């Protein structure tokens, strides 16, 4: 049950998308999101969708994994769709009691749903194809200039790396503890809200204890390997921004600029 969470999951591979420099991917995703919000008409959405489909198919990650990640969003997507269908004024297509469906409403609903789905799929593509290590590495490099004004960029990136690293570990741990308590007759799935909240105590106490224990172990392990923060630290794998990365980034920038301009005009 808990194991179905795909947040921050990484699927190792060797596709073009996997090999793209993580900094480029991070910037691409950022621009992609902005462009997605600027897109407004059929043409601009079609361009964005084409990009997304191309990237997803190049990544060679099974479509099923994306669908699985989108499933928890189903409720929000449906709600957004319904709200837009019923609460937009315009040419009336059908009417029943207080409900009214307008052409504009339908179009708006389609647009909003597309936007949510494409937004989430795009960000999934980033985490599916980039290892947490690469991702935080890229973030640290991109935020590097902030070090000048004494922002502890390296430390923040390290914290993020550790947090991401421990998501699956803690999920697995929670699963194990839940089963152990179930074996002693704990019931996590029935009763009212208060009963359910109280039923979580036997799960949360051991989980916290183990998180602290792990944190301590990790701190000792880091210290015994002389970790002392970012100062003067070199890397085993230095990120290399190649010509191909630059070319892809440039192409995407140009297209996004186009989408932005066209979108603002209303295409």
């Amino acid at each position: 049950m808990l194991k179905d969470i795909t947040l921050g999951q990484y699927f190792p591979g060797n596709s073009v998308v996997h090999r793209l420099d993580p900094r480029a991917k991070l910037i691409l995703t950022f621009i992609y999101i902005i462009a997605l919000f600027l897109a407004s008409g059929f043409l601009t959405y079609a361009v964005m969708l084409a990009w997304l489909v191309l990237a997803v198919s190049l990544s060679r990650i099974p479509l099923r994994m994306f669908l699985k990640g989108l499933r928890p969003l189903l409720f929000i997507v449906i709600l957004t769709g319904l709200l837009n269908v019923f609460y937009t004024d315009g040419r009336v297509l059908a009417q029943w009691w207080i409900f009214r469906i307008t052409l504009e409403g339908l179009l708006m609903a389609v647009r909003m749903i597309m936007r949510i789905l494409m937004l989430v799929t795009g960000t999934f593509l980033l985490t599916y194809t980039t290892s947490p290590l690469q991702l935080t590495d890229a973030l640290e490099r991109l935020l590097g200039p902030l070090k000048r004004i004494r922002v502890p960029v390296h430390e923040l990136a390290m914290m993020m790396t550790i947090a991401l690293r421990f998501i699956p570990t803690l999920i697995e741990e929670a699963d194990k503890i839940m089963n152990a308590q179930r074996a002693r007759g704990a019931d996590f799935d029935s009763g009212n809200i208060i009963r359910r909240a109280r039923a979580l105590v036997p799960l949360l106490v051991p989980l916290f204890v183990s998180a602290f224990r792990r944190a301590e172990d990790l701190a000792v392990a880091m210290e015994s390997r002389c970790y002392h923060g970012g100062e003067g630290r070199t890397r085993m794998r230095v990120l290399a921004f190649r010509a191909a990365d630059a070319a892809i980034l440039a192409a995407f920038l140009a297209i996004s600029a186009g989408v932005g301009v066209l979108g603002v005009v209303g295409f």
Partner: protein
Amino acid sequence: MPILQAEHLSYTYGAGTPFERQALDDVSLSLEEGEFLGIIGHTGSGKSTLAQHLNGLLRPTAGRVLFRGRDIWANPRDARKIRFSVGLVFQYPEYQLFEETVARDIAFGPRNMGVPDAEIGERVAQSMALAGLSSDLADKSPFELSGGQRRRAAIAGVIAMAPDVLVLDEPTAGLDPQGRREILDHIRLYHETRGSAVVLVSHNMEDIARYASRIAVLKRARLWMEGAPRDIFSRAGELEEAGLSPPPVTRVMQALRDKGLPVDTSVYAIEPAAQEILRMRG
């Protein structure tokens, strides 16, 4: 009638994902009333998965688990009740302790079963004694105990439910030889006092050899061998093929035989081995 039976049990993890893996493949096994069964297998052979089927934590992909002849999944809503009849001690069970005192943690299971308060105190005291915890630890926080004590407290928490079958998944993992011996001796004590069936899951053949009266060997998700310890350990070569090392004593006997001494190689405990060697010397 066997108290617990697995019939053609199969289980697949993550069906339909790239991480799909078959953990059990057509395993049939039965446990008699009051028996001490050992299940051994290499890491990843499906031992833990099998253990979690025995008390209904996992639902078989195919096949059935019968408790006293009744399918435990016949009515999924009753599946929780089976957990009171078949107690399962997980790997590293000390990480499940959460209450303020040892006594209250041990009482967690019986409380969930609806055991009356008056009876709970007695159950806690009895299971602490069976698990080898001195009674002055009852009011301590579980987090003040030593690693071995904590593990015994967790085992006591399952024993306190007075299950008809006690399943222990690697109860000695990560303990030193002395701690291992203490835990297993108390499990045997429990087995003898209560007379309830015990299933000991382990990859350590020596532990299993010393305590179990019957052994099942799992290999790559399948039941590979089954029988009395003597019969199993006489097939030392095959066991080693499955990635399991026979008990040291058996290996010594094997080595002696290889050197030309006609000893009985199915011996797996120290005393009989000593007698066997003395017999050879005449």
